[in-house]
């Protein structure tokens, strides 16, 4: 048990483990909705488009959490909303318009980031530094996590209708557009909260991998977010402990752990696993033979 308890002796590890639990759970929980709405690539685009917003915030107000939050949110809304409007008013489809805007935004961000008074490293933006997480960052994770999980739980019912089939949902009085816009805002908020600790790329991994794994296993909408959250939290802590003992970078270790779980779900999920269903399924020939033998 010593190998499990040893990391807890260091204060930076205690904070890191706490951060893993909160961020892993929040991202995994939110991820279910992202996967169901097929927003994974949009989330990817959003993650990169945060950069110019953060750069502008860093230039004008410095690296304080509120400034970063507002800057990132504005940049992401510019890309998400702009992409949507661009697609609606031209023959360009939404995937193209969002990709176009986020690449532009990312390039703009890199260009202006050197004018920031404080040093912002691209490495940090993408991969974060969970061992260097400060108490103020932890508080932001608590707040965003709490808000995200509360809102998604409170609106789970209409969200289910909106995610599944929009036109019927609208005839039933579900404000589909507002709910999906809200979902985008929550994605951005969660990414910004995860930024300091694990960076935007890892945040994306924590959002997509647990949710995708659970999606391969369960047919129950209500179970998905909670299972995704638990898997995200456990995977993040496991990855962190492995990185501590094996002395490898924590971010990639976390993603690798979740990646392994995803591959296992893909292969061995009882209902949808590629291998398990193939092994279990009887050849149709046997069944037809039986039926043929039964008929007089």
């Amino acid at each position, binding site marked *: 048990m010593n190998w499990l308890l040893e990391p807890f002796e260091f204060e930076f590890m205690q904070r890191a483990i706490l951060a893993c639990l909160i961020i892993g759970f929040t991202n995994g929980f939110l991820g279910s909705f992202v996967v169901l709405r097929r927003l994974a690539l949009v989330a990817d685009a959003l993650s990169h488009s945060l950069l110019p917003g953060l750069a502008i915030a860093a230039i004008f107000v410095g690296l304080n959490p509120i400034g970063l939050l507002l800057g990132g949110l504005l940049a992401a809304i510019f890309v998400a909303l702009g992409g949507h409007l661009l697609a609606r008013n031209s023959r360009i489809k939404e995937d193209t318009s969002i990709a176009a805007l986020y690449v532009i935004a990312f390039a703009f961000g890199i260009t202006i980031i050197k004018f920031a008074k404080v040093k912002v490293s691209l490495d940090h933006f993408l991969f974060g530094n969970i061992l260097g997480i400060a108490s103020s960052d932890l508080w932001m994770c608590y707040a965003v996590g709490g808000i995200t999980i509360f809102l998604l739980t409170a609106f789970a019912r209409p969200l289910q209708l909106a995610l*599944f089939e929009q*036109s*019927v949902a609208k*005839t*039933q*009085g579900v404000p589909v557009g507002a709910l999906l816009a809200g979902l985008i805002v929550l994605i951005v908020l969660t990414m910004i909260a995860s930024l300091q600790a694990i960076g935007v790329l890892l945040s994306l991994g924590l959002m997509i991998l647990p949710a995708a794994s659970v999606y391969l296993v369960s047919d129950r909408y209500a179970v998905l977010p909670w299972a995704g959250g638990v898997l995200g939290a456990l995977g993040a802590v496991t990855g962190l402990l492995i990185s501590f003992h094996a002395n490898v970078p924590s971010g990639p270790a976390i993603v690798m752990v979740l990646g392994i779980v995803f591959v296992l779900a893909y292969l061995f999920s009882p209902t949808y696993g590629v291998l398990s269903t193939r092994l279990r399924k009887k050849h149709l020939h046997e069944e037809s033979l039986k039926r043929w033998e039964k008929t007089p």
Partner: protein
Amino acid sequence: MESQASCLLIENLTVSYNRIPAVHHLNLSLPAGASVGLLGPNGAGKTTLLKAIAGLLPIETGQVTFGDLASTHAVAYVPQREAVDWDFPITVQALVEMGRYSSLGLWKTYSEQDASVVKEALEITELQSLAHRQIKALSGGQQQRAFLARALAQQASVYLLDEPFTGLDANAQAGFADALCHLRDLGKLIIASHHNLASVPDLFDKVILINGELVASGSTATTFTDENIRKTFSTSIFSGHTS
């Protein structure tokens, strides 16, 4: 058109996409307890009309009113089968329970009455034995019936179905038609877009023939005539397209 009180009244309805009318200046009055086939060539505005009635598209002129049952959720809409994500993690039972949203809202708990409405919808559509299946593990006809059951659970008075018979084999079509008859006998108004003309007399007791504008409407026996069909399908009535 009818002496009965109308369940759905459409007056001077025009719906446009980018200022090109897809359906224009359409007047219709339909009674409760009828099964209506909505017929017309591709691009005639069948889906547009259904969506406009369902309130999914902005109306440019005119209005749509729902008889004396002036509830906001008087309409249940059943989309085309291709428009649905069948991998969604949901069982038949949960799909039908979605129909109760309009009366449950955000917070209300799912009551025994809701449960009995859902149970009845599953019975009418003969899906009780499949209630716990994931929706992809259903045949095409069963999938169509599952969405009908969801619409039934909404307890609407008008049911709008977009090409419900497309892709169904004879058996599945008969099963689905039975469920629709049951609904009609309960006093519901059913409007289904349809394009297999041969099966129209078996499936619908009224027809609406449109091609951008209304060509004819009335009981199948008197309206579904060769002349009306020719008028609908062969002449190119103004539809706003400059071809």
